[in-house]
């Protein structure tokens, strides 16, 4: 049992930690990297981190997938929270849509300015 606790704490720090790390890495890319594509990648990484966090909060120790199959109808008490999974599905699709639009904007910006560096694209200011 002691072993399990230890294992669990590693999982905890691992899951939350990696998700938070993803968010921070993405944030770093968005704030520091100059290349537009890298910024878009950064945004996607942030999204990924948030989605990971979202799934993680629905987890219940020793839980199973919230799917009823013949034979486990009484597994209700062991199932993980299904709501975050449903929500994250929506969030992922939205994230995809935003990324697609972002990439298309990058393509247009590159054609228009002949550069993909964000600090050189500032014809609109003040």
């Amino acid at each position, binding site marked *: 049992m002691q072993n399990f606790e230890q294992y669990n704490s590693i999982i905890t720090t691992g899951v939350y930690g990696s998700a938070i790390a993803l968010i921070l890495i993405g944030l770093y890319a*968005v*704030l520091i990297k*100059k290349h537009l594509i890298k*910024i878009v990648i950064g945004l996607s990484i942030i999204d990924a981190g948030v989605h990971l966090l979202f799934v993680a909060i629905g987890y219940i120790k020793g839980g199973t997938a919230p799917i009823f199959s013949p034979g486990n109808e009484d597994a209700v008490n062991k199932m993980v929270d299904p709501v975050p999974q449903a929500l994250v599905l929506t969030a992922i699709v939205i994230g995809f849509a935003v990324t697609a639009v972002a990439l298309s904007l990058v393509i247009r910006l590159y054609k228009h300015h002949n550069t993909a560096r*964000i600090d050189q694209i*500032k014809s609109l200011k003040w």
Partner: protein
Amino acid sequence: MNSFFLILLILFAGAGLSFVLGKISSIISGTVAFLSIAAASALFFTQIEMGSFIEFSLGGIQLQWGLNSYGYLFGIIVLGLGTLASLYSISYMQNKERTSGFYFNFVLVIAGMTGIIFANDFISFFIFWEIMTWASYLIIIYSGKNVKKIGIKYMIFSAIGAYSMLTAIVMIKGQYDTFLISDAINAGAFNFIDNIYIPILLLIGFGVKAATMPLHVWAPGAYNNAPTSFTVIFSGAMSKMGVLGMGLVLGHMFTADRSGSLTNFFSGFSVIYLQQTIGWLGGITAVIATLYALIQDDAKKLLAYSSIAQLGYITVGLATGTKLGVMAALFLAVVHGIFKGALFMVVGAVERQAGTTDMTKISGLIRKMPFTFLTALISIIALAGIPPLGGFVGKWMLYEALITESNSYFLVIVIFFSSTAAFLYSYRFLFGLFLGQEEKETEQVKEAPITMIIPMLVLAILLVITGAFPGLIFSPIATAMEFIGFKDVTWNMSVLNNVWGNEMNLTYLGITIGVVFVSIFAFITLKGLKGTRYVGTKDISTSGEIPYENENLTFQINFFQPFVRAAAPMYKRSMNKIWNELGNGLEALFNFTRKIYTGNGQTYALFVVIFLVLMLLFKDTLFV
């Protein structure tokens, strides 16, 4: 329908109609404007009972329109002058562009002022005040000259005034939970006991329109830039709206019963300071404006500065807070409306007939425009405060009030200096335009058309009458003063009781002097009409020096050179400069702050993160 609604409806409909019809012909448009204002005046003077009012609610706010004696006094100026000025406009504006817009705004200004007079609550007061303001702004920039410089300045100062008024209004609402003027007065909103901000903010608001220092800088340009037929209203009636408001606030402030609790000492104390401050501001306004009037070569500008100076006297009178002083101020307000209206009409007539108002270019119009000259002469006498006309009565009362009732001897000196200096520019105005030799350039000039002459003469006759029978004006003033808090203002027809109890019977004095003077003027005028030798003003011997052909050697140039040299230090510092520098400084600051928007998307993202971090750092103190 209720007469209040009817009058305003007529005016607004008249405005709309003259706008539409103005696309067809300027004369039709002007006639419609004149007819609507005349109809409104007729209704105003016949249909509305003093003290009647109506109540209704708009947007959840209780509004009340009514007519009181105080409003009636100003109604006389606004609608009387408005009717005459609109009649005058028909010919004046005849061949100008965009007249539809002019008449639209002209009638709107009249409607706004009528509304101000009707307003018994602050909200409708403010609404009509603003309508008046923006309509007059549109007229000022109507000609398309100096739009950026003068128009924007006028609007900024009007906005400063209007918004300080609005602040005061909502504060009254916040403190006394009423928008009704009478309720606010009864609750003591103006008497400095609870809140010194409310009266001060209101005074700033009204002071802008009354062109009091240091908020006067918009006035000369605006008066000058507007078409002259509107300047008649602008200077004659619109500035009186500021006087109306100041009188309301100051009257109630000074007459309030301040005996009693502990705080009253302080409030009484500050009232004295405020009184002195306003009085001195008025006095300084009068002096400075007079000095500037002296150096003007343009008759219209001269009158513009003179208007400001006169408003200074009125402010001084109101600031005395004594019966006599306030009475003097209100009397001056009415008389100033008449004579300044007449004078601007004169200038307008000259402008229309001779093409310019520059006194260095024209002179000797007396033969060409005798009626105009007659009006000018009578009005100038009133302006300069020479007996027997109204200006004298008003100033006399003002001096008396200052000396005997408020002991402001220094202020008297200042005022006296200013009104003496006013003789100089009065003289110059009369001399520059009408007397002297005729110019070749003005040979073709004819008398102004009859629709312009009639209003001028009506005003001139009114001046003579009010000079002879000041009681005609004093009796409405006496009732009006009761409305602004003065008790027992007694007034006998044309008998002036001074403080020593001496009675001055003005009637006989007035009639005698009036008859004598009028006949002398008539004599001079008629004599002037007779032919004399014709010498151009530029036929001057030059002591051996040969003047260049283009050189204008008229004596009108540098008319008051010695005097100006003496007063030179006064001209150096100008309020205008200070305001301009303030404006430039602010603009530079604004230019600096907007650099925050760098144009780099990443920076914006960084702002978001910084903001988030700040919020997170302080979240436990902010959102508990």
